[in-house]
Each structure stands twice: as structure tokens, then as C-alpha cells.
């Protein structure tokens, strides 16, 4: 299908053609009164392929992947280590560290801090993702 046919003229409604009318927000100017338009809706998105081909977009997807995939693998491994060790290495888990407090309790407690720290690291990284996304949006606007 040609881009011309899929998206029509630049004034056309760019809403997804497959999904129902209520699925997604319309992207054209025509569909909404002017006062309801927000800055990035006012961007005339010529075609998605063009955005996808932008260097900034590729950079954004790569940066996200570089953070999210290792982070996800890490927390899954860290979390399942707890039931595995409790189930299959009870002697290690029962070892006392501070007074009566054992490895098992400290390891379980550490999971909470692991989750919080990982969330904080993600929020920091996501600041960079946001900046890239903003650059893409402003470039689209500037390009017209």
C-alpha cells in the first residue's frame, strides 16, 4: 500500500485505518476544534515510516532497549533467587548475621530496596528518553 493511499493528503484524518473509530486519538487538525489542539497534535505527521527512519528515533529505541532489557533480566533473576535459595539452600539462608536476624530475612528485605533503587535508576534514565522524544517532536514541527 502506498503512503499516499494510507494517509491521504496532509489534511486528512490520520487515525488508524484498521482499528475502530474509538480506538485512538485522531491526528488531523480537521477533527477537533482548534482550542482543543495540543502542541504535538498540531504537528502534521506526514508518515510514521519517516519518524521511524529518523536517527533520533533509532537512538531513542536503542537507548530504551539498552536500559530496559538488562534491568528486567536483573530483577527477574534477583527475585527468583529468593525462593530458589530458600527452597534449595536452607542452611545458607538460616545463617545468622546480626543476632538472630538471618540471611533469609535480610535477602527478602533487600528485595524492597532493589525494587526502589531500580525504579529510581529507571526514572533517571527515562529523563534522557523524554529529551530524545521531545527532540523528535520538535523536529517534526520545525520541518514543516
Amino acid at each position, binding site marked *: 500500500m502506498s503512503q499516499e493511499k494510507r494517509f491521504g493528503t496532509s489534511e486528512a484524518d*490520520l487515525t488508524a485505518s484498521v482499528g475502530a473509530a474509538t480506538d485512538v486519538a485522531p491526528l488531523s487538525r480537521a477533527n477537533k476544534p482548534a482550542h482543543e489542539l495540543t502542541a504535538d497534535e498540531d504537528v502534521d505527521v506526514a508518515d510514521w515510516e519517516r519518524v521511524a527512519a529518523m536517527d533520533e528515533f533509532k537512538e531513542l529505541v536503542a537507548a530504551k532497549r539498552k536500559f530496559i532489557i538488562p534491568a528486567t533480566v536483573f530483577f527477574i533473576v534477583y*527475585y527468583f533467587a529468593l525462593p530458589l535459595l530458600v527452597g534449595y539452600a536452607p542452611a545458607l539462608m538460616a545463617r545468622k548475621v546480626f543476632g*538472630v536476624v538471618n540471611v533469609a530475612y535480610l535477602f527478602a528485605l533487600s528485595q524492597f530496596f532493589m*525494587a526502589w533503587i531500580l525504579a529510581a535508576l529507571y526514572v533517571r534514565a527515562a529523563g534522557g528518553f523524554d529529551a530524545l522524544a521531545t527532540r523528535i517532536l520538535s523536529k517534526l514541527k520545525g520541518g514543516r
Partner: protein
Amino acid sequence: MSASVVMFLVFIAITLVITWWAARKNTGSQAYFAAGRSLTAWQNGIAVAGDYMSAASFLGIAGIIAFQGYDGFMYSVGWLVAYLTVLLVVAEPLRNSGKYTMADVLAYRLRARPVRAMGALSTLTVSTFYMIAQMVGAGALVSLLLKDTGISFRMAVIGIGILMIVYVVFGGMLATTWVQIIKAILLMSGTILLSFLVLKHFNFSLGAFFDAIAHVTYHDAQGNLVTQDFLTPGLRYKPPYGALDLISLGMALLFGTAGLPHILVRFYTVPDAQTARKSVVWAMAIIGTFYILTTFLGFGAATIVGRDFIAKNGGNNMSAPLLAQALAGDLFFAFISAIAFATILAVVAGLTISASTSFAHDFWTNVLKHGKEVAQDEEVRVARVTAFVVGAVSIAIAIALGPNANVAFLVALAFAVAASANLPVIVLSLFWRRFNTRGAVCGLATGLLASLILILLSPSIMKANAIFPLENPGIVSIPLGFLGAVLGTLSGREPSAEAKFTELNVRANTGLGAEKASSH
């Protein structure tokens, strides 16, 4: 009238005022289904926590720790870690590419009708099972806590059901959200206060507290007085299947939370993906604090109240209220009991609105009416009727099951379906270009059926003769859900779905064209 009834009436009065206020503000479907997408990060974050921390967490986990020590605490860890999946994988793309429901994301590039029909079925299954578990638990709890006031199980269930219907039918997402916010604040204050009193009981010495935990005395099943170190693992999850069951539960939590419809719809109530992200962080701060404090609730009940006393006075679900009574008397007991009601009410309201949204938006508008809204606001009208029906049916089923029904497996089932049916198709739809309609329908169907069948064969239903040895089917049903989705996809090609992947990918990553907040 007892103090807990008075406190509960105050809570009801406040929430009804909020519902009245929200009803006046609700104009149009975006306001009704998504609170106008105008919630702030902290509002939505607290509401997510309020939606998530059910009575099972507050009373159930405190009870498991009071009776089985460390294993209960280990159980509570997964409820927070699960939010990393929500934060890293699901929340932002979902907000950027959907409108009101989980199925919006699937229907984006797949054929809308089959995918939405299956998505609505899965959503209704998860919500209904979860809700029946909450209602039965609520009724049993209310009749126990208020046994002196003459409120029966049936009256309690009907009362909670009617309130939940009122919030959702009249107040929509905005009223539901505020009910959840108030409940979460009450729950956190009660928990923090209770933890403080436990520490005070031990003269603010963590050392003394943990020493007491290491020497808990109680009578075992044979009537012998035993002293047990409650920090030792293995009191609940015993060989040969204990560790596997816990891993299976962990999988259901880690992958199921990000597929729970009533949590997912919350991310449509904020203006953009950045706010969705911040609201997950708010929720994680609250949920994490709460589950760490279960150390004080559960172990506090084990050491200060004692297993024997709790067992004689209503069983392990009463651990937290009895601890409150032991530490600060009847008024505090009443306060904690009122918090438990508020907790149940907020969770069932959240479940009702996500079920009715999915029915109205996915099934009615997009499957039956082929995506054409016939009359203005028809979707909202259908959702209101659905909320009423869902509420009435849950009341009827909860009363039919009665207060002594074992419903804990229903919660396990809800998480298993969310993890095995919903999450695989959400993830594959967002990240796999080749993914297609057949894959989504196969994945949803396989995950749903595998969870249902394995629960039916598990010890929860078949007791000692169980064919499947684990209480949680996740370890088998989640891989099956993924397998169904992958095999279904590979059995055919759908060029239109592949062509639209680029569009979805751009939308999900940049927020271009995402639904905006309405200007109220």
C-alpha cells in the same frame, strides 16, 4: 452502635459526597472512563496502591506471618517487585497507544473484533473471580468484626455491593479514584500507627523485637507447647513442592500484575506517559513501605498477641485487628476494622469499573456495533448498566457461596489468568512485528484455559487427590500462554498487522498522537 460502625458510616458519608461531586463533573465518556485524563502523578499513584492493596494483603499477609512467620514475609516481597514489570515494560507504551482498555493496545494493529472479544472475555474473567473473592472475604470479615452488632454475612455483602454500584454507576472513574485515594491514606496511617505501637511495646528496640520473633511459643496441632524461631523459612512452604509453589506464585505476581485490567486502566487517567511513569513510582513507594511494615503487623501479632489467642478469636485473618486491640484498646480495634471495610470497598469499586469499561468499550461498541458509537454517550450508558449487572451478580454469587467458602484460590486464579493470557499478548503486540490476530486469540485462549484447568486440578479444588500438585498454576500456564501466542502467530501471516507495527512503535515510544487530557 459500636465504634467501628460509626467510623464506617463516616467513611461512607465522605465517599458519597465525593460521588455526588464526581457525578456533577462527569460529562462524556472520557470523564466517565478515564477521569478526564487529568489526574496528577501522586493522585494516580496513591489510587494504584489503593486499587492493589486488598484486604487479602492487609489482613491475609499479616495473618500468614503471624502463623507461619518468615514464609509469609517472603510471600509479601513479590507484590512490590511485580511493579517493576509495570514500570519498565507496560505503563508508558500502554498510555501512549490506548484509550480506555487493555484491548485498545491489541486492537491497534490487529483485527479489532476477535481481539477485543477475547480481551473483554479475559478482563471480565479476571475481574469477576477477583471480585467474588473480595466479596466473600468482605462478608465473612464484616460478620466477624461486627458480630456484636447483629450485622449478618448477607447484610454485609449486600451493603458493600450496593455501595460499590453507587460509586461506579454515578461517580465513574473519578469517584472510584478518590475512594481509592482515601482508602490508601487510611490504610497507610493505620499500618504506620500499628507498627509504631509494636515498636513502642518493645521500647523501640529492634533487637528486643527480633529476639522475641526468634522465640515464639504456641500450642501445635497435637496440643504440645512449642517454641519456634519465626525467622526460619519453611513453616509454610514445605518440601517437596513448597519452593516450586512459591516460584509459581512469584511468576503469577511478577507477570500478572502488569496484566491486571483494573491496574492497567488506571494509566489512562493521567495526561501523558511521563505522568504514568511517575504514578508507578508513587505507587511503588507506598506499596513497598506497606509490605515492609507487614514485618511489624505480622510478627507483632505473633509475639504480642500470640497464635493461640488469635486462633481462638476468629483465626489468622483477625491478626491485625486483634493486635490493634491488644496495643491500644477497643477504639483502635474499631479504627482498624473500619479500614478493612474501606479497603474492600475501594478494591471492588476498581474491579467493577474496569469490568464495565471493558464490556462497554471493547464488546458493545467495538464488537457488537463495529466501532460506531450510535448515540452520544451510549458507551457510558452501557457501562453503567454493566456495572449494575456485575455488582448484582457478584452479590448473588457471594451470598450463594456463603461465608465459609474457600475463595483464596480465586485470587490465585485471577493473577494466573492475567499473567498467562493478558501479559503475553500485550508484550508481543508491543515488541514483535510479526505478531498477528491469530497469535493474540490463541495466546489469550491458551492462557485462560490453561489457568482454569490447572486450578481445577490443583489441591485448592481436588484436595488430597490433586492431579496437579501446585496451588499456583503460573509456572506451567504462563509458558503455555506465550507458546500459544507464538505458535498461533507462526501459523499464518498478516501483512496489515506487520505494516502497522511501525506506527504503533512510534506512538508507544514518542507519545505522538496519544490521547490528551480533556480541558475541564
